[in-house]
């Protein structure tokens, strides 16, 4: 292992090659990028975001604040922690200066999501989690055990403990493999639970192929979001070690003691050669001894306490390790990395006497105590309480069916965690209504020395707090926290926002409580009183690609298509999105390269509809069957106009308003029989209108005997438009009498069109003679092809439809209205019944607001230059030059087109008091200019309605 100078003897595993900051290295299978870098003696991994200070590996898991890297190959991914990146052959990474770079190319990997359900979700496969999951799963419960690491074991991975005589790591692997074999259990490794929401809805992300690098199979989703609904959740999330604020506590070579232990035991890597240990509690002794056994020279242990655990002191004495009781580390020193550590008696830092000592060392292990990982418990709505013994917050009262187990709720011994987990498993069983086994065997573990109480020290006092870091990732120092407190901030939430401590993408896992501790210290209050900042999802950063999952590209949103869609595509139509529908926008004429532009195509299509014959796929309109003896009464209450007087066989246009009197939807109502209507809605509102009908029927008028059924996609619809439409229809429907007397305007007939059973409605949305032919959507394509077969019918799209209706002043709900427009505003007083006692919206027409003279009315606008097209949305002003802001606006353009029939441009607009302004000149911005326009009636073409009968 000459290439890996800090690798311990006896390390096994396949050799992997990787590149970091341009340098080639070797690591071993099972390494993280962090352990591989440490094995190669790489101390400075990244640099800090504000101060540009060198930073090294600080932790061994997702709490890492320092070692931020960017993966460059096989695909660029920014802001990863070297401690959670699994090493693979060919990995190329660089250290980051606190910020990464987004990929400059599309991510070729697949991502997906999956829903899962279980009786109990156990988060964390450490000793408590394995025990809980084992008890529940063996008794038949549906169990999901999720753990963020590549292998189970949790804290056991970093220690040298044995269970039932087996090394912890081996025990965990065996237990979890047995669990995974049970039919109702699911083990999710490399899976981080990110969020804990209402009703035990839990989001986790599984990293499935990230660790395979370029060897990842292309068809396999790289990351998978798990959406888990759990009847009960056991949070066996363990703890994170904290550091202490002292001078230079960010230097490479300063490391959490537990992390160093993990590197030595799990990865067989020595994080340094000569170490000083700085601790407030017993746990660092186990780390120190493990490292000493692995070959690290422990120069001294500075323990803030006067009395460390006796057993530990004895073990140190055996090995000749010096223990400085009642001491602190006042500074870590070195050029770019630790080369010496300054210690002092604790009294010295508080102004009293005592000698400081400079100890040469390349490693400083720090333990400021351990904090239970309470993030998910807090997210789930549980309260937290401060545990004086631990010096940390632990779960209090739960709001949901969730409990913490093991160290996550402050249990500190291995045996205690195993027993606690088993108990949680039993409670999960009884909650799921399953039989609870009476005896549960807990594996035998070695005796642990009784723990001496920890002493909670947040801060080593000093005259200069410039390099006492509180939040390493945000480069926040004690100096800044004190400034915030000095500025009068006394809440940790405020200090967090003022200093940014805890807001980096590690979300303050190592720094949150430390910040609280320093603030409490400065204010002279207890941490318990001060509390902690709010824990929010996600627990660890998550890629947007994973959250998007399968919902991208063509599957980003459903694309709804009609039965004729394939024809439109083949004919080269361009499409417009209308809600989720793809509707043909216009059909550029083929043959010419690059084909007609939109303007030419639309003028041609408009001309065909007004002068010849044209057809449009109108299948997307919403259609609702309204059936029952009270159907007519019901429609009278929902539409502003009268529907009960409509005769079977006839059709009427109608408008619906909300109770506030604003236009909600419009369409035609076809009376099929006394007790049966077919209502059409606008394309975008089909579902909303059906919901609206159901709401009134179910919640206000349950006495009405009416049922509403959507038939939007039962029918395909072809609009056949133009002076020659009658002639074309007559040929396609030889059995139908098409003359005006036999088949008058606003009536319908059942017949066969092109041999297909059809319902033909004589309605017009263009002012021209027109028909709408409805057939089963299975036959929609056949009908369309039959209409197009002779080649004399011009297909037209939504743009032409819009121009034709706008020329006639027909508004489009949602384009010319916006939820603040009444029928009267649209110039449709005539559609509001005076005879009906009530209908939805009627009372609002008597409100002062709906009769204000300055309400916006729908009007036509003619630009004085007939070639100028006004932009839709343009605001209208009264003056030819803009006054000082705020500029009073009179209204805005809602629709604007070039008209073949008018030979000029025109627009519709909502204009304050618009109807009284006919003939007035207003101005609209077009680019940098204000162009003059004349207000006119909104009906610009065929105002007499002479064309509809052909």
């Amino acid at each position: 292992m000459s290439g890996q100078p800090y690798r311990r003897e006896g390390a096994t595993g396949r050799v992997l090659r990787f590149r970091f900051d341009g340098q080639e290295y070797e690591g071993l299978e099972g390494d993280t990028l962090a352990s591989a870098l440490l094995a190669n003696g790489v101390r400075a991994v990244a640099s800090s975001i504000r101060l540009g200070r060198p930073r090294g590996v600080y932790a061994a898991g997702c709490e890492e604040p320092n070692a931020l890297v960017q993966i460059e190959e096989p695909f660029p991914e920014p802001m990863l922690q070297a401690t959670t990146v699994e090493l693979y052959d060919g990995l190329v990474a660089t250290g980051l200066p606190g910020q990464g770079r987004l990929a400059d190319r599309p991510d070729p990997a697949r991502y997906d999501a999956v829903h899962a359900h279980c009786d109990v979700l156990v988060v964390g496969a450490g000793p408590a989690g394995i025990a809980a999951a084992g008890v529940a799963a063996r008794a038949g419960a549906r169990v999901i055990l999720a753990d963020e690491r590549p292998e189970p074991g949790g804290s056991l991975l970093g220690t040298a403990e044995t269970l039932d005589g087996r090394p912890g790591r081996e025990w965990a692997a065996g237990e979890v493999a047995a669990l995974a074999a049970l039919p109702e259990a699911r083990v999710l490794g490399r899976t981080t639970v990110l969020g804990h929401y209402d009703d035990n809805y839990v989001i986790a992300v599984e990293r499935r192929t990230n660790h395979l690098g370029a060897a990842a199979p292309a068809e396999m989703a790289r990351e998978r979001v798990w959406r888990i609904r759990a009847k009960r959740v056991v949070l066996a999330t363990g703890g994170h070690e904290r550091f202490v604020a002292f001078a230079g506590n960010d230097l490479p070579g300063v490391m959490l003691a537990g992390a160093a232990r993990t590197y030595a035991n799990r990865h067989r890597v020595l994080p340094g050669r000569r170490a000083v240990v700085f601790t407030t509690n017993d746990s660092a002794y186990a780390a120190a001894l493990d490292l000493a056994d692995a070959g690290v020279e422990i120069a001294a242990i500075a323990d803030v306490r006067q009395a460390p655990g006796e057993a530990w002191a004895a073990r140190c004495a055996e090995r000749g390790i010096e223990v400085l009781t009642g001491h602190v580390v006042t500074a870590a020193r070195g050029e770019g990395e630790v080369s010496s550590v300054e210690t002092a008696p604790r009294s010295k830092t508080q102004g009293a006497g005592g000698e400081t000592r400079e100890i040469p060392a390349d490693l400083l292990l720090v333990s400021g105590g351990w904090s239970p990982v309470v993030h998910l418990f807090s997210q789930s709505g549980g309260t937290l309480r401060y545990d004086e013994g631990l010096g940390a917050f632990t779960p209090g009262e739960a709001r949901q069916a969730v409990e913490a187990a093991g160290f996550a709720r402050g249990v500190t011994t291995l045996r205690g965690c195993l027993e606690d987990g088993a108990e949680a498993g039993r409670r999960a069983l009884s909650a799921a209504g399953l039989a609870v086994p009476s005896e549960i065997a807990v594996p035998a573990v070695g005796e642990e020395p009784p723990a001496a109480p920890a002493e909670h020290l947040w801060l080593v006092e000093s005259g200069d707090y410039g390099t006492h870091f509180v939040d390493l990732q945000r480069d926040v120092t004690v100096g800044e926290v004190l400034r915030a407190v000095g500025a009068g901030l006394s809440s940790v939430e405020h200090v967090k926002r003022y200093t940014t401590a805890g807001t980096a993408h590690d979300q303050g896992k190592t720094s949150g409580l430390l910040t609280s501790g320093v603030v409490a210290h400065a204010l002279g209050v207890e941490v318990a009183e001060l509390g902690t900042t709010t824990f929010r999802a996600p627990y660890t950063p998550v890629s947007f690609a994973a959250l998007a999952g399968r919902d991208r590209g063509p599957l980003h949103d459903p694309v709804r298509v009609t039965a004729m869609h394939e024809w439109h595509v083949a004919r080269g139509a361009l499409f417009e999105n209308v809600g989720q529908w793809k509707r043909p926008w216009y059909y550029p004429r083929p043959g010419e390269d690059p084909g007609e532009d939109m303007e030419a195509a639309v003028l041609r299509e408009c001309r065909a509809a007004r002068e010849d014959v044209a057809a449009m796929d109108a299948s997307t309109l919403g259609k609702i069957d309204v059936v029952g003896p009270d159907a007519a009464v019901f429609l009278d209450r929902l539409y502003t106009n009268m529907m009960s007087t409509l005769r079977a066989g006839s059709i009427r246009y109608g408008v619906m308003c909300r109770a506030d009197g604003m236009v909600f939807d419009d369409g035609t109502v076809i009376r099929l029989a006394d007790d049966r209507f077919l209502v059409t809605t606008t394309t975008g509102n089909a579902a909303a209108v059906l919901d609206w009908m159901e709401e009134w029927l179910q919640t206000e008028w349950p006495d009405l005997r009416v049922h509403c059924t959507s038939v939007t996609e039962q029918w395909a619809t072809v609009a056949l438009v133009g002076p020659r439409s009658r002639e074309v229809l007559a040929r396609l429907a030889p059995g139908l009498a098409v003359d005006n007397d036999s088949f008058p305007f606003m009536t319908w007939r059942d017949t066969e069109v092109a041999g297909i059973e059809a319902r033909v409605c004589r309605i017009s949305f263009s002012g021209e003679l027109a028909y709408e032919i409805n057939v089963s959507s299975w036959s929609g394509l056949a009908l369309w092809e039959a209409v197009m077969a002779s080649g004399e019918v011009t297909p037209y799209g939504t743009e032409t439809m819009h121009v034709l209706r706008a020329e006639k002043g027909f508004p489009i709900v949602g384009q010319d209205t916006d939820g603040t427009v009444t029928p009267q505003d649209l110039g449709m007083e005539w559609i509001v019944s005076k005879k009906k006692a009530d209908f939805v919206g009627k009372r609002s027409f008597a409100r002062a607001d709906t009769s204000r003279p300055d309400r916006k009315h729908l009007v036509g606008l003619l630009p004085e230059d007939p070639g100028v097209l006004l932009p839709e949305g343009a605001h209208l002003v009264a003056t030819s030059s803009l006054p000082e802001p705020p500029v009073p606006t009179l209204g805005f353009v809602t629709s604007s087109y070039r008209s073949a029939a008018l030979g000029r441009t025109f627009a519709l607009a909502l204009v304050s008091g618009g109807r009284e302004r006919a003939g007035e000149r207003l101005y609209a911005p077009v680019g940098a200019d204000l162009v003059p326009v004349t207000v006119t009636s909104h009906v610009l073409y065929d105002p007499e309605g002479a064309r509809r009968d052909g």
Partner: protein
Amino acid sequence: MAERRSPAAAFAARFEAASAGGGPRLAEIPFLTQIDLRVDPKSPAAERIGTAIGVPLPLEPGTAVRGGDLTVLWLGPDEWLLLGPDGAAPGLVERLTEAAAGEPVSVVDVSAQRTTLVVAGERARDVLAHGCALDLHPRVFGPGRCAQTTLARAGVVLVAGEDGFRMLVRSSFAAYVAEWLLDASLEYVTPPAGEAAPA
């Protein structure tokens, strides 16, 4: 009669190819008869309808019953969907209307409103779980259960059978759902020889 085309007709070959690879079996059953029935379950009409179609309307939410070549799905407390073979709609509408005998019952032919997709085989549940939030465990959603719910971003009527699921999908959504199913199945389909299998 002019040629009919079902909403997922264009996917036949891709469904077949995906089904051949050991993944879920995907297929469209086109042109099934579907009748939406609204009736007060406590009315005599409901009882007469049960007699007329040979099976009582299921009253337990989320259940489906079979009678002859008909399957009756509970859609709501006063709503059912009757599924039958191609071409049965006119006769069925007539039978239902007759049985209603003037009571306020709504019978609407919605055969072309939705098409029927099959998601069957061993991995059917796995594939659907990628987009369906319901618990599809056989103890919870086994044969005889049905549900209106969503798959990915489309509304569906899901019917559990012995060997998988039938899924009724709005015709305009059929292509989206078909593409989604093919994409979600990809991981479960054995790659053609020569390509690496997932680790």
